[in-house]
């Protein structure tokens, strides 16, 4: 068991605290889970780049003392791709919201999954656009209220993890802010994975989604995750009907595929071989 204060060693104390998030917002829990994972892996702060888009979740990087990059809405994975390719020694992590990664950023998400670049993406899924005030997102379930769905949503949601898997991600996992310890260990696994890894962190936005759908306080929403979560192993035994409305948690997918940069590096090495031979001759 780690000491609580380990997180404080990673916070950027030049930022104003308390943080911007609403009291009880799960984003802070995800951040804690992430920091603890990094700490367990002894990744140096200098060697980690944390990239986000725009949204409540995307405010995370400003609070932590890594190389942090708060980009534009939907584009963190594309920025992260550049960061990683330019400096492959960096551990590159994207943390952003469901709207950011899956709505406007959906294309970068599926293509990064496909390329299998060694980046970890944590999607904080709170079923809503929190920052802009509760509009429905691509993960909002059918029949829910949102500020742009006054007559309840008519769009079916994505299953983030399925989308990641069928697009080519090599590690895909899910947990919730209630299961913060598991969440942290899944993030840890994702960080260790060589390849494109995705962790979906289910979180509460009681201020917007919860308020509009009468799901109660932060505490109530967080506790609700306890009841709807089903571990992968159990889920495997349940019928699709029984799984309706459930959240399957754990490692959903973990395969090996060649990583993009390693592959590309081989081309570079091959092309540079003659040059090096040249040099050797001369010396």
């Amino acid at each position: 068991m780690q000491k609580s204060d380990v997180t404080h060693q990673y916070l950027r104390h030049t930022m104003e605290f308390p943080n911007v998030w609403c009291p009880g917002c799960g984003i802070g829990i995800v951040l804690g889970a992430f920091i603890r994972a990094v700490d367990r892996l002894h990744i140096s702060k200098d060697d980690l780049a944390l990239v986000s888009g725009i949204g409540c979740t995307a405010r995370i990087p400003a609070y932590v003392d890594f190389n942090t990059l708060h980009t534009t809405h939907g584009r963190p994975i594309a920025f992260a791709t550049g960061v990683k390719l330019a400096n492959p020694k960096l551990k590159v992590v994207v943390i952003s919201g469901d709207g950011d990664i899956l709505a406007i950023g959906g294309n970068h998400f599926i293509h990064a999954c496909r390329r299998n670049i060694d980046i970890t993406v944590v999607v904080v899924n709170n079923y809503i656009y929190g920052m802009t005030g509760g509009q429905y997102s691509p993960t909002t379930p059918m029949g829910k209220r949102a500020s742009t769905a006054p007559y309840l949503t008519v769009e079916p949601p994505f299953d983030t993890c399925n989308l990641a898997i069928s697009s080519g991600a090599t590690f895909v996992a899910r947990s919730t802010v209630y299961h913060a310890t598991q969440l942290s260990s899944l993030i840890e696994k994702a960080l260790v994975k060589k390849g494109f890894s995705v962790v979906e962190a289910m979180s509460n936005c009681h201020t917007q989604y919860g308020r509009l759908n009468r799901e109660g306080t932060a505490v109530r929403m967080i506790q609700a995750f306890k009841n709807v979560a089903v571990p992968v192993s159990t889920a495997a035994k349940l019928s699709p009907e029984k799984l309706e409305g459930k959240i399957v948690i754990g490692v959903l997918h973990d395969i090996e595929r060649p990583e993009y940069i390693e592959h590309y590096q081989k081309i570079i090495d091959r092309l540079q071989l003659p040059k090096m031979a040249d040099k050797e001759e001369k010396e």
Partner: protein
Amino acid sequence: MKKKKTEGRYEIRLSGSGGQGLVLAGVMLAEAVGVYEGKNVTQTQSYGPEARGGTSRSDLVISDSEIYYPKPSSLDLLLSLTQDACNRYYPHLKDDGILIVDSDIVRQIPPVSNVYAFPFTHTAKEKIGTTLVANVMSAASIVIISGICKTDSFLKAVLSRAPRGTESKNETACKIGFEMSRKALKKAKG
């Protein structure tokens, strides 16, 4: 409306922190003077990049004639529900401007001549069971102390804008706000 105005303008700022419902309170005041009393009014607001947390403010300009510049330039009345907000905005008060604060929260009262302090938050909590209606209570006290509109108009505005299900709590808050302010006003004048 009191006669203390700049070119027929009466300027009010409701200030505090995000989540205290001050924008809504401002809108209710604006609706009271605008819709129910036919005056010109502009209501504007200002918040940080995050809608939650941080200081928040709601501004009103009220006038019998057309309002050009829609933001207050020097305040006739300032309501502050946090010390931060109070510190930040009291310099914008006119010399004879009125300051209303939550007495439990704003402990350091700045050196202005016209100050009213009411325990809005605690009264709301104790008498109505929720701090959520402190905004309406404080707006009600603005109505009484500034005289910008009739209590009736304000009540109507409150009822039309209050989230469904909270009408009666808001009405109570309103009445308590009227009451406590009337007393204070009498005392001040007396």
